[in-house]
């Protein structure tokens, strides 16, 4: 279906179009009447006025002819009739002119002409008769009568023509006047009606533009206040209506959206509640789990600590022989010194001062033994897991306290490469000592396993690994026969060992790995070959601020 819309453009264009139309109408009407008037006036000018003139001239000529004939008769002078003749010629010429005038009826004019000519012939004849002095007999009187008739007829005709022309002129003028009045009246009517109509149309157009706009404004106010329930209806059928429809769609859409939003909000609320309750449940569960995990962790930690402890004890067990050697050596010194003192006392060859001097190594070795035992006791005690800043060099030295003698007995040379004042690391002395001890024990075992006559060698190096003291590195290098590739994969696994049954627990490196990881450090095999193995331990340095 075609629906023609009256748009704003049309409405706005309507006014000038209407004005133009009215002007055109006025123009046409005035043109029409003016043309009619012009035609009338032209007709008057072209036919009536000349007709009047011709009529007047003809009448004048007729009078003149009559007079000149009268003169000629009165004077009894035939010559004077020539004047009448010339007047007659003029009359005929005028006649010809008159015949061209559309006003005159050619037929009637022809009759007039004929009558005039008859008149003239008669007049001429009778004039001559009268001049000759012919008596007024019956014939002459008859002729005179005829002449009189002709003359009167011609005169009457001329008069009637003239008066008719006059009448026609006045009629035409009256018609022209009537036309002008009528045109003025019609134009007035058109102007008034056009003005009224124009006013009406303007009012209608302005109403039809503004009223939907104000409706729209009201509707937008309502929407702005949040009232989405009322429909926006604009029935103007123009752009405003299009706008209104668009706004209506927007309103409906917004309403839907708001409803959807409301629903979604409610849904969300509901879900939040649901989820919250679920979450509370989950939280409770998680709390339980966390507690369980904490318990598990605690037990794990204690298990780990126990493991470390047992590893330690195992290594103590391993070290027991070595420690025996460690203690044996000062004991031997004490014993020998004791024997020497007793013999000297027996012989009495020794003075008190010399005796005092001999007590000094006893004292020293006893202290050393005490030291070893104290250290052993401290070492075997379970670690508290508390970290404190410690010197790596001291750590190494303390570790050697328990194994130095053993290494010596095993014919292993120890080369310490410890630069002074290394950066401190944060850690547990006891645990780290266990690591070092474990690595040294492994080195000793590796060297021992290799056998050979040449003395084994262990090189221990402590150094700063990075420029900013971020890492401290301990390298322990032995001259053993290296670790095979297959073994290398498993060395940090618990209960993995290559040593003979009863000699190793398989926990040493595994525990060391755990300890170093706990210290955020790294323990790895830096290098291994048949010529020896190098273990590397890296610990984060304590950056002094």
């Amino acid at each position, binding site marked *: 279906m075609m629906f023609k819309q009256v748009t704003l453009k049309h409405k706005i264009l309507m006014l000038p179009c209407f004005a133009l139309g009215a002007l055109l109408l006025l123009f046409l009407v005035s043109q029409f009447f003016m043309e009619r008037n012009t035609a009338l006036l032209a007709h008057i000018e072209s036919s009536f006025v000349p007709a009047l003139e011709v009529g007047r001239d003809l009448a004048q000529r007729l009078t003149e002819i*009559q*007079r000149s*004939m*009268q003169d000629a*008769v*009165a004077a009894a002078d035939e010559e004077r009739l020539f004047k009448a003749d010339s007047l007659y010629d003029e009359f005929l010429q005028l006649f010809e002119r008159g015949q061209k005038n559309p006003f005159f009826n050619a037929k009637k004019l022809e009759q007039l002409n004929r009558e005039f000519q008859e008149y003239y012939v008669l*007049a001429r004849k*009778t004039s001559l008769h*009268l001049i000759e*002095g012919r*008596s*007024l*007999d*019956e014939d002459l*009187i008859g002729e*005179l*009568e005829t*002449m*009189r008739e002709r*003359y*009167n007829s011609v*005169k009457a005709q001329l008069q009637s023509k003239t008066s008719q022309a006059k009448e026609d002129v006045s009629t035409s003028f009256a018609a022209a006047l009537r036309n002008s009045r009528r045109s003025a009246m019609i134009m007035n009517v058109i102007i008034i009606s056009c003005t009224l109509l124009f006013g009406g149309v303007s009012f209608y157009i302005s109403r039809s533009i503004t009223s939907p706009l104000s409706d729209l404004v009201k509707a937008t106010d309502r929407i702005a206040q949040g009232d989405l329930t009322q429909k926006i209806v604009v029935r103007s059928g123009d752009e405003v209506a299009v706008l209104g429809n668009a706004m209506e769609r927007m309103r409906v859409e917004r309403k839907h959206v708001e409803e959807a939003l409301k629903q979604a909000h409610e849904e969300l609320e509901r879900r939040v509640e649901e989820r919250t309750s679920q979450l509370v449940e989950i939280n409770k569960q998680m709390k339980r789990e966390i507690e369980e995990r904490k318990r598990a962790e605690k037990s794990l930690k204690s298990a780990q600590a126990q493991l470390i402890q047992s590893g330690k004890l195992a290594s103590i067990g391993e070290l027991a022989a070595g420690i025996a050697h460690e203690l044996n050596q000062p004991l031997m010194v004490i014993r020998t010194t004791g024997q020497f003192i007793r013999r000297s006392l027996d012989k009495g060859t020794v003075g008190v001062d010399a005796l005092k001097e001999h007590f000094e190594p006893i004292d020293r070795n006893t202290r050393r033994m005490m030291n070893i035992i104290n250290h052993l006791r401290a070492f075997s005690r379970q670690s508290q897991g508390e970290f404190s800043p410690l010197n790596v060099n001291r750590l190494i030295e303390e570790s050697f306290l328990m194994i130095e003698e053993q290494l010596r007995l095993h014919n292993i040379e120890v080369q310490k490469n410890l630069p002074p004042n290394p950066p401190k690391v944060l850690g547990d002395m006891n645990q780290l000592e266990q690591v070092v001890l474990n690595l040294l024990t492994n080195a000793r075992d590796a060297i021992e396993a290799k056998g050979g006559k040449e003395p084994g060698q262990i090189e221990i190096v402590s150094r700063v690994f990075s420029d900013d003291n971020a890492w401290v590195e301990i390298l322990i290098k032995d001259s053993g026969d290296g670790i095979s590739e297959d073994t290398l994969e498993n060395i940090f696994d618990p209960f993995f060992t290559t040593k003979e049954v009863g000699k190793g627990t398989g926990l040493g490196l595994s525990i060391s790995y755990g300890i170093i990881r706990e210290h955020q450090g790294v323990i790895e095999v830096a290098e291994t070959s048949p010529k020896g193995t190098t273990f590397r331990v890296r610990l984060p340095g304590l950056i002094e601020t």
Partner: protein
Amino acid sequence: MKYKLLFITCVLLSINSLLFAEEIETFYVIVHASNPHSKLTKEEISILFLKKITRWKETNELVYPVDQLKNSSLREEFSRDVHQKKISAIKAYWQQQIFSGREVPPMEKASDQEVLKYVEQKSGAIGYVSASVDIHEYEVKVIDLIEKE
């Protein structure tokens, strides 16, 4: 010279008129026998002859005046007596009347007999004849000329 002659003629004529003033009429005015009019003043007759009145009062018949010839002495007398004008004046009057298309002059008859014959035949006719003519042979009526009332 011309004016002198004219003057002399006028003087002579006036003398003549004075001489014959009290004379009895030398002409009879006659009408058709059926005409009811029997008395007319000279003025009335003049008017009728100059065709200023074209119908008879009583009968409403057309008036047909009939004149004597221009050169007749009777006519001259008639003009002088009735019209109180000379023939030439009457002539001029008629010329004007002719050419202005108003009226045609009365018919002229060459003799009293012809006049009598015309009047006898034409009802509504009026004429004048010499008093010496025996009018009893014709059925015409003589009008008494009466003085102006």
